[in-house]
């Protein structure tokens, strides 16, 4: 009512005011839309990142296998000393049986290349493990080599012109005849988890990297957990407020923000050069990572200690406990869930850290899992880096699959941390 009368009274002003008001509200809506747009963009980019990795990596979780019967003929198989047999000859015989028209010295060689380059070792291990005579046949499921694996998974497309394809029509036809005979299968790729690294994508796996990362994280935990708790307890509960403790505090905050590669330089110059510790060893990797995790653990522990109410300390002191007893018997156990949460988050960060490990040589090509913390090894992120640098087509999928495994570990660790926080942490 009053609105209407005001517009009639001040029609001109009212129109201008209305326009101004509209413009101002439009600006408000614009800012809100920018905000929504920014959030959508950020989350969308995260989605694209994860989507492309899953898209590229899911094929590597299966692996094409070919079932082949290997005949043990007298020429190739040495019954007296099986270890000295001509295993390549055995493979040639098997492939010649499957492809009767293949010529020795001609296209038989390309036929044997359907199987992975390491087939001879698979055959050798199977024969040596069993009790075989000349004339027997050994039936094995052997991984197909990378190009045929890609063909089977549809990454190499049959309708691309022959000159642009990695396999020519003849090779494709040979593989198709195997498929028709029902010799080709695509089971889950356990090799991805249980094989060590290899130059051949079809048999390369992450076991060396997983074991190496595990050892490095163990070393990191064993150093940074006790040291972190002790340092945080001292700073929070005992330290007098003076120059030294101020300096320590500033130091810890700054260490948390030092680029990770600088820790790698420190590890190279001090742990490898001065202490003479072995290169590429999970021990050194764990030590470098522990220096990086330490600030995270200290900051988390201090926050957890701060959250324990002073009444608990006073009550314990009141019944005659010493300061140390108050802390070890009462405060630390109450703060433990918070400390563990912080530690797990710190370790998860350490697990994903790559740059310092490159500098201490944990990016070597190593074909067996490390036997201990002194053996040369890779870690999960450095293995991903090595594979990302490899030219073979099959490694692209393996890299993505490796990233998915790494992300799986990270998600698990963070989920444990969140679980601990929600289930065990007490609100006072």
């Amino acid at each position, binding site marked *: 009512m009053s609105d209407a009368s005001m517009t009639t009274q001040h029609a001109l002003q009212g129109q201008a005011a209305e326009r101004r008001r509209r413009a101002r509200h439009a600006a408000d809506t*614009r*800012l809100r839309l920018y905000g929504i747009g920014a959030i959508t963009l950020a989350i969308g980019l995260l989605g694209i990142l994860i989507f*492309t990795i899953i898209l590229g990596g899911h094929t590597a979780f299966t692996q094409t296998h070919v079932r082949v019967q290997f005949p043990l003929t007298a020429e190739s198989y040495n019954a007296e000393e099986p270890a000295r047999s001509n295993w390549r000859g055995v493979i040639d015989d098997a492939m010649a049986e499957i492809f009767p028209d293949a010529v020795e010295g001609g296209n038989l060689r390309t036929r044997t290349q359907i199987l992975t380059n390491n087939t001879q070792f698979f055959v050798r291990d199977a024969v040596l493990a069993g009790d075989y005579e000349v004339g027997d046949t050994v039936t094995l499921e052997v991984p197909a080599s990378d190009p045929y694996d890609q063909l089977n998974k549809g990454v190499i497309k049959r309708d691309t012109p022959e000159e642009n394809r990695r396999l020519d029509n003849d090779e494709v036809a040979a593989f198709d005849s195997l498929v028709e005979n029902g010799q080709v299968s695509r089971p889950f790729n356990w090799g991805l988890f249980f094989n060590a690294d290899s130059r051949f994508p079809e048999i390369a796996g992450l076991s060396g990297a997983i074991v190496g990362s595990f050892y490095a994280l163990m070393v990191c935990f064993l150093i940074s957990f006790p040291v972190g708790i002790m340092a945080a307890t001292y700073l929070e509960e005992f330290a007098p407020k003076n120059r030294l403790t101020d300096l320590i505090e500033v130091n810890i905050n*700054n260490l948390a923000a030092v680029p990770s590669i*600088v820790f790698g330089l420190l590890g190279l110059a001090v742990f490898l050069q001065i202490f003479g510790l072995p290169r590429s060893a999970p021990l050194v990797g764990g030590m470098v990572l522990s220096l990086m995790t*330490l600030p995270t653990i*200290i900051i988390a522990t201090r926050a957890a200690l701060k959250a324990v109410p002073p009444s608990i300390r006073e009550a314990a002191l009141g019944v005659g406990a010493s300061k140390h007893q108050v802390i070890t018997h009462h405060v630390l156990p109450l703060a433990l869930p918070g400390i563990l949460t912080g530690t797990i988050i710190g370790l998860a960060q350490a697990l*994903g850290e790559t740059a310092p490990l*490159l500098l201490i040589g944990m990016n070597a090509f190593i074909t067996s899992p490390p036997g201990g913390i002194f053996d040369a090894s890779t870690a999960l992120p450095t293995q991903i880096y090595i594979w990302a640098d490899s030219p073979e087509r099959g490694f692209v999928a393996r890299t993505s699959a490796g990233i998915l495994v790494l992300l799986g570990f990270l998600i698990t660790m963070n989920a444990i941390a969140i679980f601990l926080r929600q289930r065990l942490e007490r609100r006072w």
Partner: protein
Amino acid sequence: MAGYLILTIIAFSLIAFWIGRSAGNKFVADAQGTTVHSLPGYHGAFVAVWVGLPALVLLLLWLVFQDNVIDSLLLSSLPQSEIAGLTPAQLNLVMTEIKTVASGTIFGEPAPHIMQGAETLTRWRGIAGWAMVATSVCLMLLMLFFTRSRLSARFRARNQFEAVISGLMIFCSVAAILTTIGIIVSLLYESYAFFQLVPPHEFFFGLNWEPQIAIREDQVAGAGAFGAVPVFYGTLVIATLAMAVATPIGLFTAIYLAEYASERFRNIVKPILEILAGVPTVVYGFFAVLTVAPAIREAGTLMGLATSPNSALAAGGVMGIMIIPFISSLSDDAIRAVPRSMSDGSLAMGATRAETITRVLLPAALPGIMGGILLALSRAIGETMIVVMAAGLIATMTINPLDSVTTVTVQIVTLLIGDTAFDSPKTLAAFALGLVLFFVTLCLNVVALRIVQKYREQYE
């Protein structure tokens, strides 16, 4: 050997604890519990800690110095006729050969002095190992008798034990300082060696960076030039690109989350954004190489622009994605720290939310936001994996984001992967670059933390 020794030390400490505790129990039984100062457990802990700790320290020192001592002894035991006139690098080679022979891998027919050296080395290592065990066990027994003899009913075992623990705690706190000192000293030391070989003014002002020089004499390589300006420049280009991507997205996100979003929306979106910061950088690197760089190249070719396969835009853009959560969460904190009364006042005067944000909240929160941006910039400068995988190796001075540039961290990694000889300028240059990187990021961090802290105090 060391592993068994650690187990021995643990076993000895347990025995020591048991001995100390039974002594304490005996005091309590004899004195009917009235005059004993500490609980029996503290007597045990006191003995155990003084038996275990010195042995552990001895073991660590031994392990650190054993190899160096044996190496120098071995070097002096080699026949003078064989090693006379060898350069340090050649001597190193001889030592390495002796060590590989000693570890059992023999290639061909080693020279007699090598075989002899290997034998001596194996023998000495055996002796050193047993000497280590013997010394540790002696030390532990000695400490056990000494500490046991100090125990008595009036002995303040608890105070003594707690003093040791306090000392340990102080040592652990100082570890943070030791790390910083270790970083600074090692960087300064190696950089000093570098500046002996390459004058500082050439490094800081030279415009030509070609560090791929020969480490061994038989390598084919460039003559070498160590002018780091193009490297610093490339770092700035990529960091600027990253900030150009991250700042607007992060800032608008923070504004929306702080002022417009409902509590529920906030609680869902914030953790999702934090995931961006939690993804390992090697994953971003792979994403940049596999997806972003080809996409940019294709788009560039469509528009008729010459695009490098490892363009600065790909590396910088992906780095920007990684940095979004740093900027958004720090700006969010800064905006929310502005007292409610200020924005309420502005809204009460009839200003719209947008006007309140741009005229009142943002100016008030600016120092906090600046602090966040500086922290993010320091992240961008120090970030390694994305640029190692997606940026170029050749140092060029170009402002074109579609061209390839190199960064400080890329150069550090490429210089130190492969041959590392600590007397070559190629290796040492990496430490000089590391020193610059450390000081630049340190200054950025200190300034940023100072700003954030000061600003927080202002409103508290």
